[in-house]
């Protein structure tokens, strides 16, 4: 077309240049953060007897958000006693249909206050608002809704004609999906008639405390849910407490081992959801553009702070160059920055300690001879940030192919045959997740049947649903959360 015709008045937009997205920040004003929070014990916020406090910061700018109490031994005692009394007197004897009503109500309130939770989660954790808004919080509400439905149908769940709750559940959750992990723990426990004492992670306590307000709003009987903030010491005291009938933990394999040791020889039932080093297998007949999307969401979703992340890409050698080229183009378009900006794809690393660990392992990768690549990307000056990183030339013997990095760092390995893909995928002490990409149905089934992983995604990755059980093989833990299977860990 004749673009520069003199008779046409007006501005012509600059052609062939990128569309620059203007800042689109979600407002912080929907959430009121208090300066200081107490423990939630027996239905009320109670100052900690320990007198200790910790500060939680916004990892995107290192500014303090609030002070929270750090529960000590006395506080743990009080919470367990409150949970026991609520179990004996109210929640345990209550008919399932009545328990279900409370859970439906909680689900409804969570959905109504979704934006508030999304903003708070993003502030405290550093993850993009896009994810808290579209993934975390909708899944949280859906999880409570799902288990609300089971509360009056436990006799039909396949665990006997009259399954009984265990009692008091001590639950310790990680910082990567703070409210979602709370939902995975609390919803099935409550649906089955147990009461809980839950400790959120040291660096992400705020949405759990806001959830305590939701429990009040829903008129949940006092003591059914107790929230104890604190650091590792609080968690250790809680899981070792003789009044806890059940311990449910999500976190690192090292801490999981410690918990298993403490619980050994006691009557406590234990479920552990631990680390992973998920293999994402891309065959040469895969739908490559969608496989690239799956690789990206497998490792860069939630900054790679995902226990089931696809942190090992196993790509068939015949398409490796093509896949890597497409992958690098795609990763270059990821937008890193302000977690509250609605167009941000990659947010902040949750803590200084985690950033150190990622840097350390990425440094090891380079020292061991793997080739590191990151797109040109400006990191904000304040806060904890790590650019999306792809390691090529990785072999099974490199530390970055074996250890969980828990950050936006992908290790790329190649394979020649389906047998080799499966062998390499299973050659890890972990066994939480895997992904398989092929357009051939028989190869999909052949591969999935041989993978020793609790979750195998077929032509997708990091998809979650409350109806789908989640859990590990080997050192990724034991027990299942989600679905009908998730009831089992809370019933006798």
């Amino acid at each position, binding site marked *: *077309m004749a673009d520069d015709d003199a008779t046409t008045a007006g501005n012509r937009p600059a052609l062939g240049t990128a*569309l620059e997205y203007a800042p689109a920040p979600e407002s912080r004003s929907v959430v009121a953060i208090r300066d200081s929070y107490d423990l939630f014990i027996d239905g009320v916020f109670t100052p900690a007897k320990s007198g200790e406090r910790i500060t939680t910061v916004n990892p995107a700018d290192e500014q303090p958000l609030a002070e929270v109490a750090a529960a000590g031994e006395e506080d743990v005692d009080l919470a367990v006693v409150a949970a026991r009394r609520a179990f004996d007197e109210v929640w345990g004897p209550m008919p399932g249909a009545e328990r279900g009503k409370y859970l439906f109500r909680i689900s409804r309130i969570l959905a109504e206050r979704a934006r508030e939770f999304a903003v708070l989660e993003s502030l405290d954790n550093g993850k993009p608002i896009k994810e808290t808004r579209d993934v975390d919080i909708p899944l949280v509400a859906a999880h409570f809704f799902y288990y609300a439905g089971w509360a009056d149908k436990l006799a039909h769940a396949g665990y006997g004609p009259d399954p009984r709750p265990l009692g008091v559940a001590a639950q310790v959750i990680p910082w990567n999906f703070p409210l979602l992990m709370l939902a995975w723990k609390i919803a099935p426990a409550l649906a089955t008639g147990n009461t809980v004492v839950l400790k959120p992670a040291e660096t992400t306590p705020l949405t759990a405390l806001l959830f305590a307000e939701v429990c009040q709003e829903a008129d949940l009987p006092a003591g059914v849910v107790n929230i104890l903030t604190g650091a590792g010491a609080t968690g250790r005291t809680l899981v070792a407490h003789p009044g806890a009938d059940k311990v449910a933990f999500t976190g690192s394999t090292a801490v999981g081992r410690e918990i298993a040791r403490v619980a050994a020889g006691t009557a406590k039932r234990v479920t552990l959801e631990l680390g992973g080093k998920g293999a994402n297998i891309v065959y040469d007949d895969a739908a490559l553009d969608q496989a690239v999307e799956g690789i990206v969401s497998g490792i860069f979703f939630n900054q790679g702070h995902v226990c089931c992340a696809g942190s090992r890409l196993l790509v068939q050698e015949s398409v490796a160059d093509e896949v890597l080229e497409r992958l690098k183009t795609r990763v270059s378009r990821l937008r890193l920055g302000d977690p509250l900006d609605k167009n941000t794809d990659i947010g902040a690393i949750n803590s200084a300690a985690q950033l150190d660990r990622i840097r350390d392992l990425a440094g090891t990768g380079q020292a061991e001879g793997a080739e590191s690549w990151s797109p040109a990307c400006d990191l904000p000056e304040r806060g904890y940030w790590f650019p999306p990183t792809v390691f090529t030339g990785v072999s099974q013997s490199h530390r970055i192919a074996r250890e969980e990095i828990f950050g936006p760092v992908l290790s790329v390995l190649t394979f020649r045959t389906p047998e080799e893909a499966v062998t390499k995928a299973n050659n890890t002490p972990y066994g939480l997740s895997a992904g398989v990409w092929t357009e051939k149905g028989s190869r999909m089934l052949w591969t999935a049947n041989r993978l020793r992983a609790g979750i195998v995604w077929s032509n997708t990755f990091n998809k979650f649903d409350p109806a789908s059980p989640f859990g590990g093989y080997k050192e990724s833990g034991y027990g299942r959360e989600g679905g009908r299977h998730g009831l089992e860990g809370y019933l006798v």
Partner: protein
Amino acid sequence: MPDTAYASDTAASNTSLRAYLYGLPGVDEVGAQARAADLSTRSIKTTAKRAAIDLAISMVDLTTLEGADTRGKVRAMSAKAAHPDPADPSVPRVAAVCVYPDMVETAVAALRGTGVGVASVATAFPSGRAPLEAKLADTRAAVAAGATEIDMVIDRGAFLSGDLRKVHDEIIAVKEACGTAHLKVILETGELATLDNVRRASYLAMLAGADFIKTSTGKVAPAATLPVTLVMLEAVRDHHAATGRRIGVKPAGGIRTTKDAIKNLVLVNEVAGAAWLDPALFRLGASSVLNDLLMQRTRLTTGTYPGPDYYTLD
């Protein structure tokens, strides 16, 4: 992306053409839909929205393709194409008008000196069910009347029955009949049904010399959906990587609001890349979207919606 360009004998026979097109990587429908949905959550505000609106206006192929079209209707639409908002001369003109062949002469006369192109559908649009000679005559007539762009339809029946060579050879013949006019090839993706077919038909058209690949006639539902446009943008991106040649993309039909238009631009920006953010390589086949773009543009400038009565209906 394939590191070699097409072998010279790719189109030598139906068998070789089929082997090539069916050897392309598949498209996972669920994944493509998820990607399109994810990109449509991009939040384009303030200065970005203003730039996107002007860009979108400059990419519109303002279209009337009705049995009831008259010279008066085409003249009125052409006037609007050159000066979309009579109250605001800073509004860019649209890229082209799109009319039936018998209306080309009228549009050319109305648009002389404005810089707005004249596109004509041809080849027995919209069904394409006519002998090749008729299709070529249709094309030649439109070009002779002054059309600078020809929007042809592929033979979907031939495509779906596996006669890929026939589709290919027809495009080549029409391209030849176009002379210097640019050729847009309409795939009618609503009739191809699968995204695998959309990718294959895109490559088939590019292989045969299309300057643009276009989703739809606007006469079949669904028309331009985001997943379809996504797959076509991936195809032109990969084709450029393999051959160095940039082919344009035109979603047409179903784009009615500024939001729809901006979602398309975000797809272009993040899938094909910035080079395609140019009316020479991306068009929006639409008509009603223009007034919404103008209204949103005024809203950004003045802070209020002036109301639909302030925009011309032609």
